[in-house]
Structures are given as C-alpha cells and as structure tokens.
C-alpha cells in the first residue's frame, strides 16, 4: 500500500518504542534479584562456606567449585530451559495450560530412561540422556497426533488429553519398574533433586541452555505459530518446520533435564503465564523474562529445600510442586481470560 496511501502523521512513529525506561529498570531489578538469589544459593548448605573462607582456605575453595557453583549453575540452566519449553508448548498448542509435564513429554522421557536402565543396566548418562530425549520426542509427537484427532479443542480439553496421556505412560513406566525391581531407582528421576549435582555431573545442562538460546533466535517463528496455522501459512511460514523445531527443543530440554536432575513440575506452566500477563506473548520479548524468572524461582525453591530441614534436604521438586500449585491456583482465580 506504499504509494497509494499517504503516510500517517509523522508523530506516530515515536510510538514504536522499545522496552522504554521502565522496562529497562524492571529488567535490571529482576536481573539483580536473580543474581542475589544465586549468591545466597552459593553460600547455603551443610558445610559452612563463607566468602571469607574462600579467600583463605583452599579446601573450601575446592568444595565451592566442585559442588556449589555447579549446583547453582544447574539450577539456573534447568529452571530457565524448562520454563522456555513450557512457553514453546503453549505457543505450539495455543493453550496456556500445556507444558512438558501436561503433554506426556516428561513421562515419556522417564519411560525412555527406565527402558535403557533395564536393557543396558550399566549405560552411562549420555546414553540414558539420548534415550530420554528420543522418548520425549516420540511422546510429544503422540500428544500432538492425538490432539489433531480431537474435535473439541477447548482450553481445558487439551491439557486433560495431555495429562491422561502422561498418566498412561507413567503407568507403563511404573509397571516395568515394579517388574524389574527398579521402583526406587525410578524415584531418583521422578522427583527433581539437585543434591547430587557436582562438577562432572551437570555439564550436560549447558545443552538445554543452548536450546533456550535457540528458542530466542527463532522467537518470531514461534510467536507466529502461536497465532495459529492459518495465519502462519498465510504469511508464508513453513508451519510444519516450526512445529518440528519447537517440539525438538522441548524434547531435548525435557530429556536432558529429567535424566540429569529429574522432573521439575509446574515451572513450564506458571513462568510463561506470569510473563504473558505482563509482557504478552511476543516470544522474543518474553524469552529473556521467562529465563530470568524460571531460573530465579528454581534457585529460590532450592534454597528453601536446603534450609527448611537443615541439615537434611528435601527434593526441590517437592517444594516446586507446593509453590507451583499455589501460584497456579491464584493465577486461575485471578485471570478470567485463560484462552
């Protein structure tokens, strides 16, 4: 329409504002808060490590680098990536209640690890991880396939389908675990727990960090997918390729996180919803906030899980379940338009 319409008043251009001063301030505040939580996380724990001891005591320094730093990094990476995975699922399914654990993704990853454990008992972590990712991919595709056959796609039916599918897969997993006496082993990755994280046992999580970054790089395509297939195709996007990419990221994140630290429920649900309320669904604008908030919440929950019963720890997955359920309830009650 270039030539035929006169350009609108010149003054309107300035409304193309970026985040604005308030946006930058909020981002700085959020960044500072996550940083502060991370520092607390580094100095909380069973053995007494203080900044002062780090300087003078080589043993303390070694412990710090061996255990504390990896743990905090792992929390930030896993929290950010699981939240981004939730965001992607919500865009792809156009439903705010879908996340990897309400789509059969996480349960499939768990089944994948179990099967490898049964078939190749001594398999190293990378093998289990790969199995988890492949299983997560298949489970997510199954979910999307079932969805395509469901006529009524109301906002509650979609997650219900996912939860039922997840429950069926979980039941299969439990059956095999029972059969092969692996129920206790199953417990270690069914509930997210960072107490075993140390140097050499968390590095795989950098992969999910890369996945979160990838999501940021293809953010516009994910946003368009959230507008639905019709609009995506109309503006010339290869919709199937975007869905494949999104599902790939989600499966990889879920598979790696489940095999390294275990299930982290609710993060993928509450974090993208909280961000959406304030920033909206523009994925490029949302991903940085989702990462900050997701990492921050997980670090906070982990601190709680470490101090609440000192010197013992409770799994962070448990804390997350309680906090997440509460936040989710508040969200449900406060927000009428849930899409």
């Amino acid at each position: 329409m270039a030539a035929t319409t006169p350009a609108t008043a010149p003054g309107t251009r300035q409304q193309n504002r970026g985040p604005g001063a308030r946006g930058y301030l909020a981002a700085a505040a959020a960044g500072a808060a996550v940083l502060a939580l991370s520092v607390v996380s580094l100095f909380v724990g069973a053995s007494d490590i203080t900044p002062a001891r780090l300087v003078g005591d080589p043993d303390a320094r070694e412990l710090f680098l061996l255990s504390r730093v990896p743990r905090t990094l792992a929390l930030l990476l896993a929290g950010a990536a699981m939240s981004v995975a939730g965001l992607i699922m919500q865009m792809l399914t156009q439903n705010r209640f879908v996340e990897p654990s309400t789509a059969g993704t996480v349960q499939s990853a768990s089944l994948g690890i179990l099967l490898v454990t049964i078939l190749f008992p001594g398999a190293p972590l990378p093998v289990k991880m790969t199995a988890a990712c492949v299983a997560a991919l298949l489970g997510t595709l199954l979910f999307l396939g079932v969805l395509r056959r469901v006529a009524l796609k109301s906002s509650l039916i979609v997650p219900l389908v996912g939860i039922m599918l997840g429950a069926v897969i979980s039941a299969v997993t439990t059956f095999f675990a029972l059969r092969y006496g692996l129920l206790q082993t199953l417990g270690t990755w069914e509930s997210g727990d960072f107490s075993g994280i140390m140097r050499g046992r968390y590095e795989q999580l950098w992969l999910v960090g890369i996945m979160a970054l990838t999501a940021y790089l293809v953010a516009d395509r994910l946003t368009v997918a959230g507008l639905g297939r019709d609009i995506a195709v109309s503006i010339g996007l290869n919709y199937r390729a975007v869905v494949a990419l999104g599902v790939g990221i989600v499966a990889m994140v879920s598979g790696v996180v489940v095999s390294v630290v275990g299930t982290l429920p609710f993060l993928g649900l509450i974090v993208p919803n909280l961000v959406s309320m304030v920033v909206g669904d523009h994925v490029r604008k949302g991903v940085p906030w989702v990462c900050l908030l997701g990492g921050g919440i997980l670090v906070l929950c982990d601190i709680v899980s470490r101090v609440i019963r000192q010197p013992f720890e409770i799994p962070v997955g448990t804390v997350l379940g309680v906090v997440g359920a509460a936040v989710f309830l508040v969200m449900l009650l406060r927000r009428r338009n849930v899409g």
Partner: protein
Amino acid sequence: MIELTELTKTYGSSTVLDGVSLRIERGGVTSIIGPNGAGKSTMLTIIGRLLASDGGRVTVDGMDVDRAPGREFAKRLSILRQENQFTTRLTVRDLVRFGRYPHSQGRLTAEDHAQVEAALGFLDLVPLAGRFLDELSGGQRQRAYVAMVLCQDTDYVLLDEPLNNLDMKHAVSMMRQIRRAADSLGKTVVVVIHDINFASAYSDRIIAMREGRVAYSGTPAEIMTSEVLLDVFDLEVRVEEVGGARIGVYYR
C-alpha cells in the same frame, strides 16, 4: 487473476466442491454468497492454500497454488479466516508487524515500519496500537487482523466472513474499509459473506454458490433478482432498489 479449474473437494462421502471452474479478475471487491454448506469457505480456503484440494487446479496470476514457494506466494495473496478461540497476547502493533513477515523475515526496515503505521491508520487503530489483543472487543480485534492482512501488502486479499461477530455499526465500517482497500489501495478483495445486502451494496461482482458449484456469477444487478436468489437460497426474496443499491427483503 485467480483461476480455478475443475476444483473438487470431498469430506468422506460428502462432496463439498464439485468441479468448480471460475475466474476472478483483478481489482475490485468480489463477494461469494450462498447457503450453508455450499462450499464457499472451502473454496476460499483452498485458494488461500490453507487446505489441499482433491482434484483440479488453482492459479493466482499463473502461479500454481500447490507448488508456489510459501514466501513468494505470501507476497501475492493473503487470507484471513474466522477468528480462532485462542487470542494471543500481542499488542495490535506487534500483530500488524507480522504482516510484514514475508517481506522482512522479522527484520523490519524503515519502509516496513511506515507500512505498519499506514495500515494502523487505515483501520483507525492508532489509539489502540499499544493494547493487547485480548483486551479489545471482538470488532476491534477483527480490525486488527484485517490491518495485519493489509500490511502484508498483497495484490489479493481473501477474507472469510469478515463480518462475523460484528454489530451493525462495525459491520458497515468493515465493509467501507474493504471497499476503500479495493478503491484506494488497488487490492483485489474476495470475501465470503452471509448477508446478501452487504454483498449487493459493496461488491463489484457476486459469485453465488450452491451445492458445491458456482450457480451464478455476475454484477450485483444481475445476481440480486428474485429468480436468482430463489434458485440459490430456495427462499422467496423481494428485491427493491433502495438508495442506489438492490436490497433483498426476506424477513417475512
């Protein structure tokens, strides 16, 4: 020119499009009317390559819809279907910006920005540009989607029932804007529409469909007659000339 050759589409045992051949010339507003199940929306959706046909061919300016590369085709033809349930929380301006996607792939140039502002102005959306879509009324949201489609700056614009969910005032203003898009922006607009009187008052051509076929095609004067409307809708319609437009009276 949009050209359909022997286009067929079946769902299970029911034939929705039964060998439709049709030409839609460049320019102006073309309305597709007909009773429910006549195949109007199916035809529009296939032209807009959102649905695959079972037989036949659609070309747009000689480009085969099935084979044209998505991005190139998206610079030539845009389609907007009825709104879906899920409303993304995007601001109106961000939504309209995605109309530039085929041209910019997300990196908007100064010209893209100018087009976005022009489309917002064209649909009187400037005061709402910063609002989230889910905070708007149905009519405002519909306008935002139309602005996005216009911003795509394609020669052909297909709209599937753009008056759905609009009250009288907004329906009239939507039709005026569609007319203006054809007249002042030189677009070829094809709309599927239920209200025969809107079709009569705002189109250059009307295509009347029945049972998966094009029953009639012509100017509003040719289509808006009691005989044709009886044949198409199986309903007695008295047609009167009101204020320069032929208006069908069918309420009693």
